């Protein structure tokens, strides 16, 4: 495996997905940033989930080291699961990550940018659940 793990952020809202990508990139620092792509809303700009945008985003960030997909709500979760079940829609090594969307995205991108493999990216993103705010 070479290259960095890619990150895909799937939200019901295009602005949310792209803003979280921007936030994660801004907080990552360093000289190298792993590829990240936003797949937010529907192709016509509405709220919802687009399998087309998700497939395109995953292809865009695939460097052969796996793709970590973080999602927000309901249909985003179900659509990614369904695409994974199809088997031929997403790049090999694409994984749905169970993580909080914003915090997980930051942890995933920092870890991927540092050269962490897909397991490390998954662990870092999922660990974001353990940080209690009160």
């Amino acid at each position: 495996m070479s290259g960095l793990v890619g990150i895909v952020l799937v939200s019901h809202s295009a602005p949310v997905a792209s803003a979280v990508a921007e936030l994660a990139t801004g907080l990552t620092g360093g000289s190298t940033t792993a590829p990240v792509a936003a797949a937010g809303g529907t192709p016509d700009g509405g709220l919802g989930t687009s399998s087309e945008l998700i497939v395109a985003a995953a292809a865009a960030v695939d460097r052969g080291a796996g793709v970590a997909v973080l999602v927000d709500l309901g249909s985003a979760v179900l659509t990614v699961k369904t695409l994974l079940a199809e088997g031929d829609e997403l790049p090999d090594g694409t994984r749905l990550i169970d993580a909080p969307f914003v915090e997980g995205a930051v942890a995933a991108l920092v870890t991927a940018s540092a050269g962490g493999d897909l397991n490390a990216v998954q662990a870092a993103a999922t660990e974001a659940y353990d940080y209690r705010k009160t």
Partner: protein
Amino acid sequence: MLDAEFFRRWMTTTAETVEREADRLTELDSAIGDADHGSNLRRGFAAVTAVLEKDNPDTPGAVLTLAGRQLISTVGGASGPLYGTLLRSTGKALGDAAEVTREQLADALSAGVAAVGRLGGAAAGDKTMLDALLPAAESLSESFEAAAAAAETGALATVPLQARKGRASYLGERSMGHQDPGAASSALLIGALADVAS
């Protein structure tokens, strides 16, 4: 025996029914969901009709898997992957036979419904489409009419239930007293099947 043409008519009849009932589905969804179920399904099944005309799949299994793929890519809400998985899993279970029996469809539909349950992590009584689909798949081994009646009864039986899945679950007890939109649209799907068979 049921051939590809029968399954095409099932899908186009569903599209017509959804078109006719879209406002009612959206109204049900505005009570406990995000008020887009009718418009989402209308867009999805219109796309199904279009792709079936263009690609002309020649087996029952191929009709359903193509229709399911189209729903996944066009609906934009949770009903897309859920109905897409239902039709694709049912279609895959039918294999590449040129014609199938009602009993074979009943078995395949049961496999499709089980796949929907796995995808959504839902079970009977959670106030979801499964409350219409599970009894429908079971009754289809008896007759098309029994399946349609079971789906309709199951959909109506979701009214007093408390939602445990999806956006409606956030409402807790306030979800009670409203019919589940997914169960309502599932009853339309099975009703269209019985219409085409009669």
